[in-house]
């Protein structure tokens, strides 16, 4: 064996390592491929050896070759071998190779599951780290499902290095296995407050990524993120959070209002450009989400635009780019504020940097108005001529079209000009956007009736000069415009001046070189033209002309009949036969023109692109239902169709009513007008854009003016658009002059002092009347089409699966699969059994408890029952405690407990929802502690409705779950449960009945009645307690440990001005003790006061924070302090002071730290903790209120709660663990506590006792 190893190592010395390989490749520049293929052969040999070092070396080389583009998937199995090496060096090589070349369809991945699991739980954190990194690149749905639980455990790893990696990878797990999101989310959320900034940042990262795709599910996290935003100093985290807020604000405008201020502050204060930029971006998002018109927001907009202008003017091209990018966002909602920077943006259009030019182009889109459209497009056309490189030119082309066609051509006042712009654009060589120009031509020609004659004339010249376009046809997309030209000339051939010429142009032999679909259109429209020509010629006495035309067709069409394109061939032969027949008839002197043109009669109306989709399903129609009975019996088949037809008949005949009286008709017309006016899809013909969606008074008033062609149409290849610009200018001047005249007249008529009102300043938008009123034909939409736009979502988006409600409490069935889960599925594990049972009993029991309080009369019978159940529960509880002690051996049990725990108090989750409401509705600082609770109470009121709404939903689910999982073992149990349930339900009904009865009588009863249905809400709680108060000012404070620093306590003081005077120059000072010191800025003496950084106008309150350094935290502290301030009246100002005593309770050193039951059990097991206990008598409140109070006032978190017993955890700022076991029976509450610092524990318990003695 030893010999083998030695031999392997010696072999290895002759192997190439990565460096040798690279050197070799560099030395074989001429025959690189050949050299590499010999290397690959060597590698194959090396992989066959047993020595893992040789294999790892080979795999490392393969990773390099993979970068050069060589497929190395054939070595996938060897890579797995190297991954499973026990040596970190090789493992790392293996995982790197895997992350570079494994993907979902790599089949060996399924072999890695156990190896990865082993590495994840390795004692060496770097093994775990390498496995996590690798997994993040090749995680598959299977791996995600199998490893989700392991990774979730790693999220609470002791090493932050692992925690942050585990948190990040969860995002990938969620994507591949969406079911894991809900069970894992609570822990992920905790990580937002992880003491390690790296972990925190990772958690922010993941949640931001999740929230970006499904923002509405994460709204409830807004307060938490808000807190992070105001407290974090890490720019990365800040940027992410601010970006996230940008995604959340559109959903909740109130959030936006709250954000504006801190964001503006950041904008003013930060020196980091990246942060500034993101702040501006989010402020913009906020402003977009808020309804505009609020006066104070125009300041914010101004601030943003002003900051962006600074960015754009910066010499750093990056800032310039981003400035333009953000500007384009403002543009959408506040075009006016951007338009004032038009000069700057037009300047950027000439920048040497293409990225910047493109961004400036984007902005132009919103800069245009009726007034300057022509001018801007002219400028762009110049750029088109100058532009080198087709991409930029194509971009310009699409932008020109975008700008002109936006919102139904609202800025175009002269469509002749637009058509000529389009025609000019066809002269671009090598553009990809021929089809875009073509569709614009078609659109305009079809929808703008008044322009058709002009369009047809232009298209005819295009067709005539087709050879100019088709010079190098195959390579060039511009020939697409011929498609449009041919169709327009054919369809609207009545407008052609010289149809025969055009017909001839369309049948030229050269046409056969065009792409098939264009030829097909040529052929079809040649037929239309032919019909028009015939019509014109038949009126004449001389029939030879008509016959000549037919002959022309017969001569030219055979060319197309031979076409390789089926479409062309089919149409051509069809039409050829038709024309031959017509010729025969003509020879017999039969008039055919009428019949021929009847072939193409009728007008085609444009149909809106989504029309088909938007047809609503008529009421009562179920598309999935069988129309007929499924064809089981043959006899029914014959009859049913008949019945269907018979039913339909009346429907058809209905619209044929003719005898409707005049009144009815008028009424209908009115209704229709109304409907059209309200229908957003009905494009009103009013060309004055702004009014389109507002108050169009109908369609009648629009005069369809005859166009008088003031521009000669003859010259084909010359830019005409410029002439239009001039003409338009003249026209507008004339109009203006006329208007002025009129105004003068008016003024003369009036002559009163009001003349100044009609000041004819610079021409405004509305003043410009279009050259010709244009009747834009509507796009047809089905009646009562649904105005929804949700069809834009991509059904394949992986994030769709992650659109999951996270606020809903977890159900029992939702847990991550654990290792034993699938293997032991058939066998029933006792733990699971117990879990099910407890779940089934849990809900009814809780209700039971509540009802007990409501109805004392039924108490006795109830008590019996609850006793029974309690027994059971006690039993179970013991079982569970065993589980806890058993630790990891019984992992599934612990896991299910966890989920159970999360599911248990529905009030907490609904409270969260209301929290958000409360947080959003409240002013940034609760102005008054007495007021705050009432608000909270008001806010809390609707909460129970939510809770009671969800309760019935979840209740019926539970028995189902139990039925599913409980297959064999406990049938008798089930029966019992059912019985119990039934009984309970009966009782419930009874009670309800009873209550109803009573509520008629007494007011008090009815109040109680209300509370029966609402699950008792948590009483409002506030941690702010009164610090000191006099007639001028009131101070309330909250003391919290600082989790970043083990020796700091943060005191938040709310100062409230109670008098009518202005309070200023407030100074906060505390007499330091040996143990606790107020942190003062550097350079100030130990007795100097701290200036409160604000002044208080009358009735206003504001919050300031002071940091104290403490050394020992095991004892409560009292500090004396003074607040001095100046009271300023209009005439006088006095110096006042207020003394106070700051009480640092031991509780204030505790920090709410979530703890999982497995960790909790370990902690208790460790034996380092010393115990103590306390009994509280006469506590008259529901157990969950009790827990909530301990959590809230004493910064604990519930680890686990089973019925009337709960374990709780907290940690001090110096890392002491405090564990509580709270039990209640009747009005006695006993608390067993353990902590590694007995003095601290004693004090905390005393404080808890005091809390409950007060209530």
């Amino acid at each position, binding site marked *: 064996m030893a010999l083998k190893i030695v031999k392997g190592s010696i072999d290895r010395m002759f192997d190439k390592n990565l460096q040798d390989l690279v050197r070799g490749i560099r030395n074989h520049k001429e025959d690189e491929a050949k050299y590499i293929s010999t290397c690959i052969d060597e590698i194959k040999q090396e992989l066959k050896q047993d020595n893992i070092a040789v294999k790892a070396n080979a795999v490392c080389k393969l990773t390099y070759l993979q970068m050069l583009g060589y497929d190395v998937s054939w070595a996938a199995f060897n890579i797995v071998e190297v991954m499973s090496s026990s040596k970190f060096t090789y493992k790392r090589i293996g995982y790197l190779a895997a992350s570079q070349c494994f993907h979902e369809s790599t089949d060996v991945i399924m072999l890695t599951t156990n190896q990865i699991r082993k590495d994840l739980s390795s004692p060496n954190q770097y093994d775990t780290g390498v496995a996590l990194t690798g997994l993040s690149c090749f995680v598959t749905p299977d791996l995600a499902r199998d490893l989700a639980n392991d990774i979730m455990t790693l999220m609470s790893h002791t090493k932050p290095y692992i925690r942050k990696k585990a948190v990040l990878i969860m995002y*990938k797990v969620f994507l591949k296995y969406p079911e894991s999101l809900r069970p894992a989310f609570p822990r992920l959320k905790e990580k937002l407050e992880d003491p390690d900034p790296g972990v925190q940042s990772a958690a922010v990262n993941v949640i931001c990524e999740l929230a970006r795709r499904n923002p509405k599910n994460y709204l409830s996290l807004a307060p938490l993120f808000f807190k992070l935003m105001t407290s974090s100093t890490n720019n990365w985290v800040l940027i992410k959070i601010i970006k996230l807020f940008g995604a959340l604000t559109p959903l909740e405008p109130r959030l936006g209002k709250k954000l504006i201020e801190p964001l503006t502050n950041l904008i003013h204060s930060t020196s980091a450009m990246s942060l500034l930029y993101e702040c501006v971006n989010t402020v913009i998002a906020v402003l977009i989400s808020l309804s505009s018109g609020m006066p104070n927001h125009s300041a914010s907009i101004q601030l943003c635009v002003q900051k962006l202008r600074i960015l754009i003017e910066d010499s750093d091209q990056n800032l310039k780019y981003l400035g333009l990018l953000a500007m384009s966002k403002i543009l959408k909602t506040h075009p006016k504020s951007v338009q004032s920077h038009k000069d700057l943006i037009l300047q950027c259009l000439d920048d040497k940097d293409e990225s910047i030019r493109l961004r400036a182009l984007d902005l132009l889109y919103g800069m245009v108005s009726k007034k300057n459209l022509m001018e801007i497009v002219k400028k762009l056309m110049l750029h088109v001529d100058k532009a080198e490189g087709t991409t930029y030119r194509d971009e310009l082309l699409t932008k020109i079209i975008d700008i002109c066609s936006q919102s139904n051509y609202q800025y175009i006042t002269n469509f002749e000009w637009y058509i000529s712009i389009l025609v000019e654009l066809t002269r671009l060589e090598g553009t990809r956007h021929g089809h875009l120009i073509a569709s614009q031509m078609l659109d305009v020609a079809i929808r703008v009736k008044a322009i058709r004659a002009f369009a047809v004339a232009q298209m005819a010249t295009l067709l005539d000069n087709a050879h100019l376009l088709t010079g190098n046809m195959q390579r060039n997309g511009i020939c697409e415009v011929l498609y449009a030209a041919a169709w327009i000339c054919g369809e609207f051939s009545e407008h052609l001046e010289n149809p025969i010429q055009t017909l001839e142009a369309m049948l030229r032999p050269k046409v056969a070189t065009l792409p098939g679909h264009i030829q097909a259109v040529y052929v079809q429209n040649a037929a239309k033209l032919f019909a028009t020509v015939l019509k014109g010629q038949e009126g004449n006495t001389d029939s030879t002309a008509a016959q000549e035309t037919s002959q022309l067709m017969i001569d030219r069409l055979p060319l197309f009949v031979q076409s390789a394109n089926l479409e062309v061939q089919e149409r051509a032969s069809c039409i050829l036969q038709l024309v031959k027949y017509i010729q025969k008839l003509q020879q017999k002197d039969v008039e055919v023109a009428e019949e021929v043109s009847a072939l193409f009669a009728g007008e085609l109306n444009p149909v809106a692109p989504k029309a088909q989709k938007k047809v609503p399903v008529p009421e009562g129609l179920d598309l999935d239902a069988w129309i007929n009975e499924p064809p089981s019996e043959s006899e029914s088949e014959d009859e049913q169709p008949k019945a269907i037809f018979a039913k339909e008949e009346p429907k058809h005949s209905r619209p044929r009513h003719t005898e409707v009286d005049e009144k009815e008709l008028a009424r209908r017309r009115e209704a229709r007008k109304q409907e059209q006016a309200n229908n957003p899809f009905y494009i009103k013909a009013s060309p004055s854009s702004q009014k389109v969606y507002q108050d169009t008074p109908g369609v009648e008033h629009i005069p369809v003016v005859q166009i008088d062609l003031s521009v000669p149409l003859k010259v084909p290849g010359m830019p005409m658009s410029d002439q239009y610009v001039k003409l338009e200018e003249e026209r507008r001047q004339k109009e203006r002059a006329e208007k002025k005249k009129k105004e003068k007249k008016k003024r003369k008529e009036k002559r009163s002092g009001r003349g100044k009102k009609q000041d004819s300043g610079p021409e405004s938008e509305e003043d410009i009347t279009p050259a010709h009123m244009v009747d834009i034909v509507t796009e047809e939409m089905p009646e009562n089409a649904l105005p929804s736009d949700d069809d834009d979502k991509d059904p394949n988006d992986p994030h769709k699966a992650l659109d999951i409600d996270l606020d809903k409490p977890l159900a029992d069935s939702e847990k991550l699969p654990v290792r034993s889960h699938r293997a032991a599925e058939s066998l029933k594990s006792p733990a699971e059994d117990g879990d099910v049972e407890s779940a089934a009993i849990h809900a009814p029991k809780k209700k039971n408890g509540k009802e007990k309080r409501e109805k004392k009369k039924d108490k006795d019978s109830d008590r019996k029952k609850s006793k029974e159940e309690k027994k059971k529960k006690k039993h179970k509880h013991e079982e569970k405690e065993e589980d806890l002690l058993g630790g990891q051996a019984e992992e599934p049990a612990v896991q299910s407990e966890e989920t159970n725990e999360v599911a248990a108090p529905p009030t907490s989750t609904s409270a969260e929802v209301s929290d958000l409401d409360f947080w959003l509705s409240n002013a940034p600082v609760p102005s008054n502690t007495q007021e705050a609770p009432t608000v909270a109470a008001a806010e809390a009121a609707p909460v129970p409705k939510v809770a009671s709404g969800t309760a019935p939903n979840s209740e019926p689910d539970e028995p189902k779950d139990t039925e599913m999982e409980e297959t064999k073992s406990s049938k008798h149990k089930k029966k019992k449960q059912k019985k119990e349930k039934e009984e309970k339900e009966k009782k419930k009904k009874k009670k309800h009945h009873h209550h109803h009865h009573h509520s008629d009588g007494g007011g008090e009863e009815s109040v109680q009645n209300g509370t029966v249905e609402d699950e008792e809400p948590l009483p409002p709680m506030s941690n702010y307690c009164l610090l000191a108060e006099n007639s001028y000012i009131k101070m309330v404070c909250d003391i919290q440990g600082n989790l970043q620093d083990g020796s700091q306590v943060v005191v938040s003081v709310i100062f409230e001005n109670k008098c009518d005077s202005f309070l200023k120059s407030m100074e906060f000072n505390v007499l330091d003790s040996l143990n606790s010191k107020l942190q003062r800025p550097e350079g100030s003496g130990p007795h100097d006061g701290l200036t409160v950084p604000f002044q208080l106008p009358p009735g206003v309150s504001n919050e300031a924070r002071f940091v104290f350094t403490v050394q020992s935290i095991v004892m409560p502290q009292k500090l004396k302090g003074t607040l001095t301030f100046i009271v300023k009246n209009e005439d006088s100002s006095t110096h006042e002071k207020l003394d106070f005593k700051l009480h640092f309770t031991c509780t204030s050193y505790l920090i709410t730290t979530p703890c999982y039951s497995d960790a909790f059990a370990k902690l208790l097991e460790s034996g380092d903790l010393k115990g103590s206990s306390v009994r509280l008598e006469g506590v008259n409140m529901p157990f969950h209120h009790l827990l909530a109070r301990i959590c809230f006032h004493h910064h604990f978190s519930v680890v686990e709660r089973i019925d009337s017993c709960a374990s709780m955890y907290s940690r001090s700022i110096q890392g002491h663990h405090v564990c509580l076991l709270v039990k209640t029976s009747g009005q006695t509450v006993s608390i067993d506590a353990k902590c590694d610092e007995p003095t601290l524990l004693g004090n905390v318990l005393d404080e808890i006792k005091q809390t409950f003695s007060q209530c």
Partner: protein
Amino acid sequence: MIKAILIFNNHGKPRLIRFYQYFAEDMQQQIIRETFHLVSKRDDNVCNFLEGGSLIGGSDYKLIYRHYATLYFVFCVDSSESELGILDLIQVFVETLDKCFENVCELDLIFHMDKVHYILQEVVMGGMVLETNMNEIVAQVEVQNRMEKSEVSDVKQGL
């Protein structure tokens, strides 16, 4: 999210490629070529952002790059990343390389592609930014290198 990180030299030779979304090898090479083509023709004094190429991503994606001497560092990212932030990140990454290799030059990247990967793994994981603090990154890389060294010496002692 970061979709891909590419490092190539002034001639378009890849020095490190890291895709966070699967592409077959030939597609990867095509993307490198396209990206090189887009990036290389830009002056050094124009902005560092580039609307993504046609192959990678779509309108939501951007190329953010920096050009150092003979090397281009290109990150392809979507709109959830801050543009300036990514520029800073590239800077952090390069400075880290500089620290780990002591005056990094292209040759270091050529001969130690694996080490560069290991450093990158401490900065970006699965397309998400893992760590931005250079000292932390360097510390983690060094610990792992020490582990590797001790394992190598174990093997030698075993001989």
